Structure formats: structure tokens, C-alpha cells
């Protein structure tokens, strides 16, 4: 078991958002989490990544058998957890190259490896850029600064390709993307998919799942996973919308 979530409760400013989540993710699997807006999808991603504004009030999360909550944000990352941000942050003055080199080398240090030689690093960057069809000058710019919405999302997938995580959580990576960008993002994910890693894809729409075919689909509603199934569930949701879920569980 890569990730095991049991009865997870979390709140922000005293307001409970997650009200008992149970979810198991194994290596080699792709899970899609769907649901109406404001039901806790992004909160779940944030809590797994360790965003400090959320308070975990109950439950247990094991990652590779370890208590996830004992790991700092950076330790979770170095252990292979990657969060693709819904709203990637602009960081003026920090170049993409330097950001990625610092990240790669800190991750390598954690694994007892020497820093990657500059030449190897630049070659690796070039290779990964091709994967997401990123313009070459993107990496000389400051992190996300002045990037279009599509560029920001492609940049998330690019970083994922560089860091090669074990568990990638993509938080509404498809939102705001045109069909070409969507295809590029999905293609990146499909290329990186192996039997040793896992993806949790959070999305509001079924559209992305035409490109990234999930093994499991979960519906998150009012802080709980109310329905799980295979990819047919996603198609059913697309057809019927979320109203029938609301009616059933409200």
C-alpha cells in the first residue's frame, strides 16, 4: 500500500472541510477524485502535501507505511509526494533553472546522492521540456512569472517529470486549459506513468479522463467519499451531472 487514508477529518479556521475520508492508493494505480465545487477536493490534496493552514482533527494517513503527519512539507516531497498546484505560485527573481536545480539537489542529498553535475542537469532539463512541449526559454524565466494559464499547468507537469515522484496529486490541473494544452498535460502524465508510481487526479470534469484513463473514480461530496467505481462512474457523472449525488446524500 502506497497511501492509506483512514477517517481523515480536517478543518480550516475551525470549519470542518474533510469529514471522514477513507482512501487507499497502490502503486501503479490512477485514481480520479471528482465532485462539485467546494466539497473538499483541494483540501484533501493540501492536507496530504502538508499545507499548514489546515488542521487535521482526526484520522490516520500512512504513506509507505509511515505516519504522514510526522513528516515536514519538504520531507513529504523528498519521500516522493508531488502536488500539482491548482494555482501555481509566481516567484519573481527565482529562475526556473535554479529552482529546479535546488530542488533536485536537495532531493538527491536526502537520498544520499551527490549533487547532479551541471551538464547532466541541463541535459535532463532539455529532455523533460520536450515531454510537455515547453518553449525552451521558459526555463530562463522566473518561476511562473508572466506565464499564461496553460504554461503554468504545463510547468507543473514539467516539474513532476523532473522530480519523478512516487505519488503525484494533480489538483484540477485541467482547469482553464484548452484542448491542446489538455492533451499535452495528459500525455505527460501517461508517459510518466509506471507500475512503481501512482496518480491522484482531482478534476471537476470528466473531460480529462478521456485522456488519462483512471483505474478508480471517487466522488467527494461534503467532505466524504460517497461513491467509488471505475471509469464508467465518471461517464455517468458527465451524463447526469452532480445533482443526483446531491439528492442522494444531502
Amino acid at each position, binding site marked *: 500500500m502506497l497511501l492509506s487514508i483512514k477517517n481523515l477529518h480536517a478543518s480550516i479556521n475551525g470549519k470542518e472541510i474533510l469529514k471522514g475520508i477513507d482512501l487507499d492508493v497502490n502503486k501503479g494505480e490512477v485514481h480520479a477524485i471528482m465532485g462539485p465545487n467546494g466539497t473538499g477536493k483541494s483540501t484533501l490534496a493540501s492536507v496530504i*502535501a*502538508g*499545507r*499548514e493552514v489546515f488542521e487535521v482533527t482526526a484520522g490516520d494517513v500512512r504513506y509507505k507505511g509511515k505516519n504522514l503527519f510526522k513528516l*515536514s*512539507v*519538504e520531507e*513529504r*516531497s*523528498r519521500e516522493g509526494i*508531488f*502536488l500539482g*498546484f491548482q494555482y*501555481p*505560485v*509566481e*516567484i*519573481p*527573481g*527565482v*529562475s526556473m*533553472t*535554479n*529552482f*529546479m*536545480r*535546488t*530542488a533536485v*539537489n*536537495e*532531493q538527491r542529498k*536526502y537520498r544520499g546522492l551527490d549533487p547532479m553535475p551541471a551538464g547532466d542537469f541541463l541535459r535532463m532539463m532539455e529532455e523533460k521540456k520536450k515531454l510537455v512541449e515547453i518553449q525552451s526559454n521558459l526555463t530562463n524565466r*522566473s*518561476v511562473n512569472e508572466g506565464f499564461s494559464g496553460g504554461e503554468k499547468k504545463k510547468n507543473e507537469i514539467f*516539474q513532476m517529470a523532473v*522530480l519523478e515522484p512516487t505519488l503525484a496529486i494533480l489538483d484540477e490541473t485541467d482547469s482553464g486549459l484548452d484542448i491542446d494544452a489538455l492533451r499535452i498535460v495528459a500525455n505527460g502524465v501517461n508517459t510518466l506513468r509506471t507500475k512503481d508510481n501512482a496518480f491522484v487526479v482531482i478534476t471537476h470534469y470528466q473531460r480529462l479522463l478521456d485522456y488519462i484513463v483512471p483505474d478508480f473514480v471517487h466522488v467527494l461530496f461534503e467532505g466524504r467519499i460517497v461513491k467509488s467505481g471505475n471509469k464508467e462512474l465518471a461517464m455517468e457523472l458527465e451524463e447526469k451531472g452532480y445533482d443526483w449525488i446531491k439528492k442522494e446524500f444531502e
Partner: protein
Amino acid sequence: MESITKDSITREMMLDLFGKNAERICRNDTESITANRKKALDSFGKLGFPTTRLEAWKNTDLSESLAKTYDFSFDPLTGASGKKIFQCNIPHLDTAVIGQLNGWYMSKDVPLIELGNGIIMGSLAEAMVRYPDIVDKHLARYADSDHNGLTALNTAFAQDGIFIYVPDNVTSPKPVQMINVIQHSTNIFLQSRNLVIVGKNSRLSLVHCDDSYNYEGSFSNIVTEVFLDENSFVDHYKLQNLNNDSTLVSTTVIHLEKAAHIDSHFISMNGGLIRNNTRIDFQGTDGIANVYGLYLMDRKQHIDNQVFVDHAKPGCTSNEMFKGILDENAHGVFNGHVLVRKDAQKTSAYQSNRNILLTDTAKANSKPFLEIYADDVKCSHGSTTGQLDSEALFYLRQRGISEESARMLLLYAFAAEVVSKVTIPQLRNRIEDMIKKRLQGELQICEQCVLHCSTPEHPLDFKIDISKI
């Protein structure tokens, strides 16, 4: 060298001190310079030292600095060799160095250096004797002694300082580096005066360093007048690295004739109390002034940047960008005042001040201010003060970067916007190094000058490589 020791500094004491030493103070004067001194002394007699009751000084209190014991000296240094301390160890930085020790021009054997291209640089006291016409024409013509007590005091007392003259149509072949070092066995009060004159179509790079060499206290009241004639360009750097018992009031008045252009950089790394009064006077059309500032303060350090830009003529552009990182109990003040006069149409003026407060006890007062009487202008101002961006911090940490490194990256990136404007590559590299050291808490006061911060024996070692940002 004879010193006079005074227990605390008051208006009356200064007036008395001038009276008793007038002969020595006026030793090299022309008649008009002496007349200026008398006038300025009267003005100081009326104004006195600034107090927090004055609007322009409400956030900077000099009373503690003035309550100390200081030594005064009205005679040039004799016998001291300043050569060694003015050596600058920035690799490959090729500058013409002129040094001041405790306010006096050093190297008395060559008080004025006269280059084949007509550039003259050296001691202001000597220039008063050798080039009275040039000095008379410019000295005390730009700095305002009528409304500013400390400028008046400097005009009355200053005996020496740096004089730089670039004739028309000359480009200085290398940057001129003015190094002002304070090294004294007791607290010292000094007032030096610098005069920089750049002729028509001429270009000068000027690096101006204020450093202290040991841990004794000091009060420096320094006035620098810079005159840019038509179509000239000055690339000006002011680097400040003083000990925690130092008080520095540095007034820089920049007068621009038609189509003159100055880029001025104020980089303050350390100092007990630093007050930079900067005045830009556009007295011709189409001038450009970019004024950049960066301050990194901690402990109980105090930095105050006052920038006044007088758009008196049409078509001029001014751009101010000041950024500060304030740690522990540090206090940063920024007051930017842009005055666009009625006839100054087609003015562009921008002001920006951003501060990062690293603790709850650090403090920033920021007041950008535009006063506009013309109607066809482009002006904007902005000010932000806050913590380090927590979203950016989370983003970096989510990629595996430690919190400490992430903070360093963000702080360095914040500062880099100002540093990137430094156009002398060797100087920029050194300033970058110093910022890295400063942000890691390693740089307090350099054992020598501001530019002596790293040595081959102690190479810099950073946990993360931020050289390529």
C-alpha cells in the same frame, strides 16, 4: 593631530566650536566660501539639529546619537598611511581609488590627481586652493542650507572631502571609487563634503563606499553635491557598511542639466543609524534619474531613505525603487516625495517601496508621495510591507527545498531586483556575495572595508547555489 572632545552635541556647543576654530576651518577658503560658511552657520543657529518634531524627521531620532561623547579635529591628518586600508579586494575590479580617512583626503603627497584627459580628482581642500573658480561655481550651490540644519552645519564646518571634475566630452576610462573609512580610537564626529562635477556629454562611473574599520562610534554628517551638465551620464553607487555604533547622515544632491542622466544605487548593508537624504533636481528638460535602494537591517539598526525629486522642467523621467529586508528589531523608513511643477509637462515619475519584515518587532514606515501641478504627466507610486510570501514558501518546500533554503531563495530574489541594476559586473558579483552572507547572518561588520568581505582563505560556502538566479 589635536582633537577636541565634547561630551554631548548641541546647537550652542557647535556654534561655540565654530567660533573658537574659525581660523582653522576657513584656512583654504575663498572669500565666497567663507561667506557661505557664515551664512550657513547662521542658518544652523536658527534650525539646530533636526528633532522628531519635524515632519521629515518624525521617524528618525538623532537624540541618542547626539548624546554621546565625540572627538573633533580641524587639522588634516599627518603621518598616517592610508594606503593599505583603501585597497579593495574585489577580483578584477579596476577602479581609480581615492580615499578618505575620518573625513580627510588621504595621500597628501598627491593631493590632486590630474589625468591627461583633463579629469581632476582628489582633495576638496586642495581644489579650493588650486581651482577656486570651479569650486566657487558649484560648492554649496545645490545643497540646501536654508531649510536643512545638518546640511547647514556641514556647509559651515566641512574642510575637506573628495573633489572630482570631469571636463566636457570626456568618458572616465574606469570607475572612480571613493572610499570613506572611519578608523579612530575614540568616538569621532566628522563632516566631509564631496563635490562631483561632470561636464557636457561626459560619462562617469562613481562608486562611493562608506565604511567603518573598527567598532568605535561615529557621527558622520556628509554632504555630496553632484552636478551633471547637459547630456552627461553618471552611474552612481553608494555602498554603506558601518558598525552598529555609527550614525551616518548622508545627503546627496544631484543637479541635472538638460538631457543629463543619473543612475544612483543606495545599498545599505549595515549601520547603527543611516539616514540618506537624496535630492534630484531636474533643472533642464529631458533628464533621467533612476534611484534604486536596497537595505538589509537587523538588530536595532535604523535606516531612513528620503528621496525628493524636483521635476522643475518638462520631459524628465524619475524612477525610484527601494526594497528592504528588516529583521529582529530593525526599523526602515522610506519617504519619497516627487514634486511635479506646473510647467513640467510630459513628466514620468514612478515610486516604489517594498519591505519584508522577518519578525513581529521589525518595523517599516513607508510614505511615497506625489505632488503634481502639471496636467500631462505619467506618475505612479506603490508601497507594500509584509511577511515573506507564505504561498511561495510552501510551493518551494513542496518541491523538496528546505524551509531555510526556501526563505533564502525568496529573500535573495527580493533583493536581486535591485542588485540586477548594478552594471559593473565585478561589483554586482561582490554585492551578491555580500547579500548572501548578510542574509545568512555572517556579515556584521567587515574587518576592513565594505568590499573586503570574502578572502581566498575563507571562500564563500552556501548550502544552496544561488549564483545562477
